[in-house]
């Protein structure tokens, strides 16, 4: 949603949560911890198929070291409070493009995130027919299945009035 400019550092992950409301309360309570690792926004989407599955994205102010952010106690505790014993793979990248070319088809926004560590294949954007092939590999290995959900909450971090 709002708050992510081009080249913002983004962490994204979808995972199962025992109690979504409790997780969100915990996040608000530990806002300082999130701010200390450079977070400026956390956005939560809720799956339309699985109520306890969420997609969370976190925008960071600086890419000082993505590895320092990932191994910070706040991230581990976030998963622990969510009830996730196993830590899922996390996407780390930056916003490289915001597209509006599919508006005619009812798609409101497409944001392209490019991984910091791997060259993302984005051929399907220019050749949408290839999307079917790309999607067929979702859910294999480290890659999660497609997430279809609704925007639930936006939390602005570190802007207390």
């Amino acid at each position: 949603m709002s708050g992510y400019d081009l080249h913002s550092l983004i962490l994204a992950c979808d995972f199962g949560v025992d109690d979504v409301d409790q997780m969100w309360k915990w996040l608000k309570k530990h806002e300082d911890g999130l701010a200390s690792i450079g977070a400026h926004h956390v956005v939560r989407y809720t799956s339309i198929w699985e109520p306890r599955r969420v997609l969370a994205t976190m925008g960071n102010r600086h890419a000082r070291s993505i590895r320092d952010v990932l191994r910070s106690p706040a991230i581990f505790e976030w998963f622990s409070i969510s009830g996730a014993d196993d830590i899922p793979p996390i996407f780390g990248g930056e916003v490289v493009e915001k597209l509006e070319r599919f508006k005619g088809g009812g798609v409101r926004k497409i944001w392209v995130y490019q991984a910091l560590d791997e060259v993302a294949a984005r051929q399907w954007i220019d050749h949408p027919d290839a999307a079917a092939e790309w999607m067929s590999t979702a859910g294999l290995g480290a890659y999660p299945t497609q997430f279809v959900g609704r925007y639930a909450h936006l939390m602005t971090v570190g802007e207390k009035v």
Partner: protein
Amino acid sequence: MFVCLCTGATSHAVSEVVANGAKTSKQIAEACGAGADCGRCRRTLRAIIESHFQVNSCASESLAR
């Protein structure tokens, strides 16, 4: 995708280790460190191993036809 938060190991790095012969999460940990610390990423490591052999087995079947 980052799979091991403790070491910052990526799925790309782990996949290379698996392509080079690692068949267990222990062997992956020995080769690149992923999963050696807190161990909470081992399920993902096993998924990467399974996916590697699944893809390779499909490729072998296609070649055999």
